[in-house]
């Protein structure tokens, strides 16, 4: 029977939750990574390794790796720095993507580093130099709170030279030549603020691509939900029917291109679930209508947030959904979101949740 592994990145280390294919009973291991803040942890199916992007306030940024599903861990930041003469400073490693043993990590200030030796060493792959306005991305005067960085990366399923990157507050970009050149993929997105360049200046929080149809993408933007039917070349807003236009997390059904999950949040300073009622929202018709899913989720005084990488979906015939909150609760649904179980209540603040299914 296969195993289901949840990789949970928290403010105090990485935790691993494990279950069988039923996904009902879970065991927990951790914290790993010496309690460093872990922003994103991923599993490489080709090598079996786990990678965790972490940034210690004391000891700087590094990528931790475990070749044996968490039994042993090591870290490296060899090569994970901008050149002295570059002028930029690497302050945080934010997001990971892995394919066929190649590991990418997105960092602040905006850049993508890669490792081809299983995370032992790193080299700068791209800073998206030449994109409209990119010369201003590292100007402190133009930085919003939290600073700009590469907040998400995603490989194409088949072509390892093709991937997408989100530059925080700037937009979504695609490369088909492994980072040598890039194209903005933001046409049709909404922005409620002035933008000096037509193709960029959009606040993309999260994007996902339908495994069953690569042309179909969804994104949670700072302002609205959006759908693309042409691999991100153009976008259509699908916010109507949701309680707010704001949120971070998103997931797309592994077998149905029209089914997509989001967790709307209050767009103000709180950025928690509206009115203290926890809910995931699902569309089964590509965003024409939305349905609230809250059975088993707290419906009173649940002022919880869910961050960009903190929702995941597995690839079962009846896929399991998982999300973690910024107050340390971890929820699981094994019926496509219809009902939820809380499998951990007192974790540190959760930054990321990823799922791996292992034979």
């Amino acid at each position, binding site marked *: 029977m296969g195993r289901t592994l949840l990789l949970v990145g928290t403010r105090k280390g990485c935790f691993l939750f494990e279950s069988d294919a039923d996904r009902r009973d879970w065991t927990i291991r951790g914290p790993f990574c*010496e309690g460093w803040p872990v922003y994103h942890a991923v599993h490489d199916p080709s090598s079996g390794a786990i990678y965790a992007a972490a940034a210690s306030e*004391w*000891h*700087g940024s*590094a990528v931790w790796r475990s070749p044996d599903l968490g039994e042993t861990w090591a870290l490296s*930041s*060899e090569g994970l*720095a901008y050149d*002295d003469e570059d002028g930029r400073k690497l302050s945080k490693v934010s997001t990971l993507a892995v394919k066929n043993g190649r590991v990418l990590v997105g960092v602040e200030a905006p850049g993508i580093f890669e490792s081809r030796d299983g995370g032992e060493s790193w080299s700068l792959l791209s800073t998206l130099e030449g994109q409209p306005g990119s010369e201003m991305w590292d100007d402190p005067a133009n930085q919003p709170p939290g600073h700009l960085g590469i907040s998400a990366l995603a490989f194409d399923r088949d072509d390892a030279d093709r991937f997408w990157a989100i530059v925080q507050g700037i937009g979504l970009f695609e490369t088909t030549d492994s980072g040598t050149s890039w194209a903005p993929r933001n046409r049709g997105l909404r922005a409620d603020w002035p933008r000096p360049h037509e193709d960029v200046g959009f606040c993309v929080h999260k994007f996902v691509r339908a495994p069953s149809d690569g042309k179909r993408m969804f994104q949670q933007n700072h302002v609205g939900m959006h759908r693309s039917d042409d691999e991100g070349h153009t976008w259509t807003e699908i916010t109507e029917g949701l309680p707010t236009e704001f949120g971070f997390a998103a997931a797309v059904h592994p077998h149905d291109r029209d089914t997509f999950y989001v967790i709307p949040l209050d767009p103000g300073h709180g950025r928690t679930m509206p009115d203290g009622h926890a809910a995931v929202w699902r569309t089964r018709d590509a965003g024409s209508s939305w349905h609230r899913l809250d059975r088993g989720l707290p419906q009173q005084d649940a002022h919880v947030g869910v961050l960009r990488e903190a929702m995941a979906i597995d690839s079962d015939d009846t896929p399991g959904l998982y999300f973690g909150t910024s107050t340390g609760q971890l929820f699981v649904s094994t019926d496509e979101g219809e009902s939820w179980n809380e499998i951990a209540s007192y974790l540190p603040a959760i930054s990321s949740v990823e799922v791996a299914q292992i034979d």
Partner: protein
Amino acid sequence: MADLHLPGTLTPLFAGLPRRMDVDAATVGEVIDRLEEQWPGVRDRLCEPGPSLRRHIHVYVDRERANLETPIESRARVDVIAAISGG
């Protein structure tokens, strides 16, 4: 020779790195050089590119705040502190 004391946040990251040891070095920077020779990667955990000490890594030589250039007299005590951040 420095009487070096390291923070408990650092030693779990490197196999065999003790909390306290004697290090033959003339400056704080040389102390870190000696550590790096034996435990590759230590420098990245204590210094930013430049190099300079990381913002929340404080070094004291005989109880005086130090930087990488600070000289070390014979039998000076060198404390490396993971400071301020946390919680």
